[in-house]
């Protein structure tokens, strides 16, 4: 564990002391090294149980896929940001990279925390670099609005969580993950207990996001620069899911009744946001709403509290992280060429950038959960466990799958097929860097088809 964390911390130092000419290559190689080392986390001799480093940090089959995803994403973010930061002054480039690295450090600490308060502090700490990235390096004026929404939605949701954790600690004495399993809060049917339950979950539901509190996500994703969008979509949303999975243990008897409205809201959100995707004119906005849609399924899978639900949620989180990040990178390749995110102005690109069309194709297929990709595995497990709980959810989830397929195909066909407008005929050809970026996104996804045991958590 420390072999990843300490090098990450020292990557900060490297950012500021490298000679400028070698900055990006150095940081890229360094972060690749860290990412490769992080793959050792996936080797777990036992299926359950924790692997300890010290008293404060540990990982287990639930957190190790997310940790590896976090570490894998940093080199990808570096590759993606290199072009649009090239014109900025030197110190700003270094600052940007430092923000990305500090984000990774906070995320590693969050996913490997053994105690809920540490998790909470790191959860909040990730907001700051993300906010700075969105509001300082975003492209449009609306980024200020987006930053405000992002910050305040998440903060307002997580303040009750702090209170709830402190209540639990003062009554039970410990918030360590080890002891959580044996210390559920005694259930007396006080209204206050139900409020406490809600307080525990609200932060994570806002972060996921759940459909009713999702407004910050399209704004933040659209206005953020590419690295910001990537990390938001791939990892920060999963913080919410991961937190929910951890805290479910202490919420036990109450969840049976109280989770009902949230499951329904999540499933309704899948359909609603899917339908919104069909009406979007802005490409990044479409991908952002599709994130909300997939995360709705994840939220429902976690709230259902069955082994298959948890497994499906975790697999879908990892697969969605890679897919969504890949789609944002593809949207960024469009944006860097045409300086516009409007879909109708960037059509018929298969004629001009045929190899990029391959990546678009693979990413769109992954988005619509094509077998045998892990996206489908996750979705099927969640849908099955929901069906087991109640037959009628099948209507919602089935409709949701249909709408997901339609908007993914719509996005692919609109951007790649069709007549190409005259102003796109002389578009810049694809760079090797862009191909590398997308290959590194989609290759892990394809490899996971062969060994999903790596990412399906301690159940199954």
């Amino acid at each position, binding site marked *: 564990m420390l072999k990843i964390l300490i090098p990450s911390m020292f990557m900060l130092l490297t950012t500021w002391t490298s000679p400028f000419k070698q900055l990006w290559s150095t940081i890229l190689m360094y972060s690749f090294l860290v990412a490769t080392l992080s793959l050792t986390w996936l080797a777990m001799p036992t299926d359950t149980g924790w692997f300890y480093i010290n008293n404060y940090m540990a990982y287990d089959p639930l957190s190790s896929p997310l940790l590896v995803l976090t570490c894998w994403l940093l080199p990808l973010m570096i590759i993606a940001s290199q072009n649009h930061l090239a014109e900025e002054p030197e110190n700003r480039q270094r600052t940007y990279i430092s923000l990305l690295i500090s984000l990774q450090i906070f995320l590693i600490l969050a996913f490997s925390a053994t105690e809920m308060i540490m998790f909470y502090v790191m959860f909040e700490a990730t907001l700051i670099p993300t906010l700075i990235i969105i509001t300082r390096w975003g492209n449009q004026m609306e980024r200020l609005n987006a930053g*405000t929404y992002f910050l305040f939605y998440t903060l307002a949701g997580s303040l009750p969580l702090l209170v709830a954790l402190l209540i639990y600690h003062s009554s039970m004495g410990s918030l360590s993950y080890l002891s959580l399993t044996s210390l559920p809060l005694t259930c007396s049917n006080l209204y206050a207990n139900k409020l406490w339950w809600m307080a525990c979950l609200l932060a994570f539901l806002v972060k996921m996001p759940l459909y009713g509190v999702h407004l910050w996500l399209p704004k933040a994703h659209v206005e953020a620069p590419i690295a910001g969008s990537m990390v938001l979509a791939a990892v920060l949303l999963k913080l919410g899911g991961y937190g929910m999975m951890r805290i479910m243990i202490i919420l036990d008897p109450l969840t049976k009744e109280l989770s009902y409205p949230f499951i329904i809201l999540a499933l309704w959100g899948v359909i609603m946001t899917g339908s919104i995707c069909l009406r979007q004119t802005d490409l990044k906005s479409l991908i952002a709403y599709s994130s909300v849609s997939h995360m709705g399924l994840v939220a429902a899978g976690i709230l259902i509290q069955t082994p298959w639900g948890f497994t499906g949620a975790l697999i879908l989180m990892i697969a969605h992280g890679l897919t969504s990040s890949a789609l944002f990178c593809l949207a960024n390749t469009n944006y860097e060429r*045409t300086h516009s995110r409007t879909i109708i102005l960037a059509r018929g690109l298969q004629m001009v950038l045929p190899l990029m069309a391959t990546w678009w194709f693979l990413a769109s297929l992954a988005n619509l959960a094509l077998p045998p990709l892990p996206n489908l595995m996750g979705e099927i497990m969640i849908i099955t466990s929901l069906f087991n709980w109640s037959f009628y959810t099948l209507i919602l989830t089935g409709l949701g799958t249909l709408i997901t397929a339609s908007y993914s195909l719509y996005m692919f066909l609109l951007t790649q097929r069709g*007549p190409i407008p005259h102003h796109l005929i002389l578009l810049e050809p694809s760079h090797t860097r862009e191909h590398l970026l997308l290959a590194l996104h989609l290759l892990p996804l394809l490899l996971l088809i062969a060994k999903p045991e790596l990412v399906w958590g301690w159940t199954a």
Partner: protein
Amino acid sequence: MCAWRRLHGSVRTLRGSLLRGCLSSTAATRRQPGRCGGLTLCQRLSTGGALRNDFFKDLEDQLAAMRKKAADALPGSSWMPFEINPNLPPETADIVIVGGGVVGWSIAYWLKQKERLPRGMRVLVVERDPSYSRASTVLSVGGIRQQFSLPENIYLSLASADFMRNINEHLSVMNEDPVDLQFNHSGYLFLASEEVAHIMEENYNTQRLAGAKVSLLSPQRVKENFPWINTEGVALASYGLENEGWFDPWSLLNAFRRKAISLGAIQCFGEVTDFKYTTHIRTTADEEQLETRRIKSVKVQMPNSMEYQPVECAIVVNAAGAYSGKLAEMLGIGRGPQDSIYGLPVPVEPRKRYVYVVHCPDGPGLDCPLLIDYSGVYFRREGLGGNYISGISPEEAEEPDTSNLEVDHQFFEDKVWPKLAHRVPAFEKLKVTSAWAGFYDYNTFDQNGIIGIHPLISNMYFATGFSGHGLQHSPAVGRAVAELILDGGFKTLNLKRMSFSRIFAQEPMLEQNIV
């Protein structure tokens, strides 16, 4: 002394108001010192304010102010913590249309019309003349005809006439007045002499084939229909029966503008002074190096100010009319070595044309088409009071100076009046009541419009160079450019021949006119 007393008085009132629980000192409370203690020297001479301090009314005002401030600061509103000049264009736009004349606004309207979802694209129209005092659109005579020799021009005019006849289906806005173009369907009457009569016949056939309702008249028929014409020297005449006449260009411009803005287009008054572009060097099939440019952003300068705003954009449409050539020069077109592709400028430049308003009470009267004589002179009725407007295109060698819009009245005496009076004897007795001058966006290459992308600038569409037909073709040209941008090619009218390729191949597409 007086100030101390006043201060003392105000402290007393503040304490008093604190006791009463006022939230802050309003103007009413601040005026108390003048009345406290009867200090006549320091009494404020204000005449406003409540005589009695109404606590509840003040409270209500303050709460309303606080509510307004809170509502402003909430994320949903457009309140910004720092002041921005509201006249600046947005920082980013999808399509920037340079030129707010009738062609520019027509393109903006059609782009907004064709986007399938509302707010799908951001269309910005940049116009540098807020009063439109020098714009070619409003200074135009406003005629529309189908009597061209090129099928493209005929189709453009037919489509535009159809659009304008049903203008309220297209351009009406809810809760606003309907559009009235004052379209006089009086038709065009071309008079041909013996030498050019055959051209007129050929054109007539082309026009009929294209669907224009034109008729050929013999001089006797002309004399029967229009007795005030002197048919000496006239061998053949062609008269447009439908879809020809004149209309009010300002109404059309405003109709397009109003509708486009209601659909979401953004208007900005400013001048485009610079472009930021990226350069790419490619190898052509003949192993040559070709340098193409792609516009990244447009620098819009505010009128009479040093302020400017760079607008990041995906596409730029050059609808700048007479100044299209100068706009293209900012991108380097025309400034390269003479014999290369870079040295070929966009062949559009301003040409000044005079229009004279004359009053002739014994003139042709109401039944008066837009008459164009083979000598080049033209006139049409203006209004119902016996006024006519008239003009003539000057010779190539005598082109007037284009640095200003001053009218040369001698030109009327020397060139226009004699020919006018010859053709219509009633015009021997007339009085010039006013005159104006306007610029043609004159295409020096072949006097026909250029629609399409320039081969060297990857994302700049041109819709310019119409040389006097821009207004009458504007609705159809707008639709054509919108189809090019959004559909990837022409859908309703095939205007491929009007692209830049004819200029680079040096094959002019000339009109076979009788004038």
